[in-house]
């Protein structure tokens, strides 16, 4: 049973466009939602994260939108650049518990065309 589902499976966007990646979760105990970015040959790197007490968080060209009632969150990349081409993972975890762990989506590959 996949607890965090990403869509679409892959995405191709023109330079300057908006990339939108969606995630849906099932576990209502989740209350920390990070996005990771992974370039080929590298480990995933934390990009941006949100907690459910806010509906949106913006860092530069990257924005997370969060819809608690729908149990969905999404990553928006504004003015997409070829350097944004990477694999993106959403994840979720409960905050409480010393041994809380992240549940990851399967990842999507973003290609930004020049």
């Amino acid at each position, binding site marked *: 049973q996949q607890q965090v589902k990403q869509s679409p499976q892959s995405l191709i966007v023109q330079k300057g466009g908006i990339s939108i990646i969606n995630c849906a979760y099932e576990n209502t105990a989740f*209350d*920390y939602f*990070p996005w*990771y970015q992974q370039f080929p*040959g*590298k*480990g*995933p*790197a*934390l990009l941006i*994260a949100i*907690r459910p007490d806010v509906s949106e968080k913006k860092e530069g060209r990257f924005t997370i939108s969060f819809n608690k009632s729908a149990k969905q969150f999404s990553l928006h990349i504004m003015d997409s650049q070829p350097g944004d081409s990477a694999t993106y*993972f959403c994840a979720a*975890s*409960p*905050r*409480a*518990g*010393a*041994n*809380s*762990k*992240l549940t*990851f*989506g*399967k*990842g999507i590959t973003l290609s930004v065309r020049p």
Partner: protein
Amino acid sequence: DVKVTQSSRYLVKRTGEKVFLECVQDMDHENMFWYRQDPGLGLRLIYFSYDVKMKEKGDIPEGYSVSREKKERFSLILESASTNQTSMYLCASKTLPGTGQYFGPGTRLTVL
């Protein structure tokens, strides 16, 4: 900056060999994790540790064991490597619950 290092970037082993993958973090993090990453399957948790000498099974622990003798070091052991363990192995660490994990660069293991 948090730094998570892994002992090898690439490793080639033969079926039946015992394989050790080492991970070291320099930020005094309590929690450490081992994942494997395969195309189309995303990141799958093998084992994690929330304290020295403590370990818990993840989603796919079969064929693996771990060791955490010191806080900064978390080792993944393949007791008898098999070809279906060919994969990218990623180590991660984090501190408080509900915070982000920091990943190492990964070890690409090939078992022949």
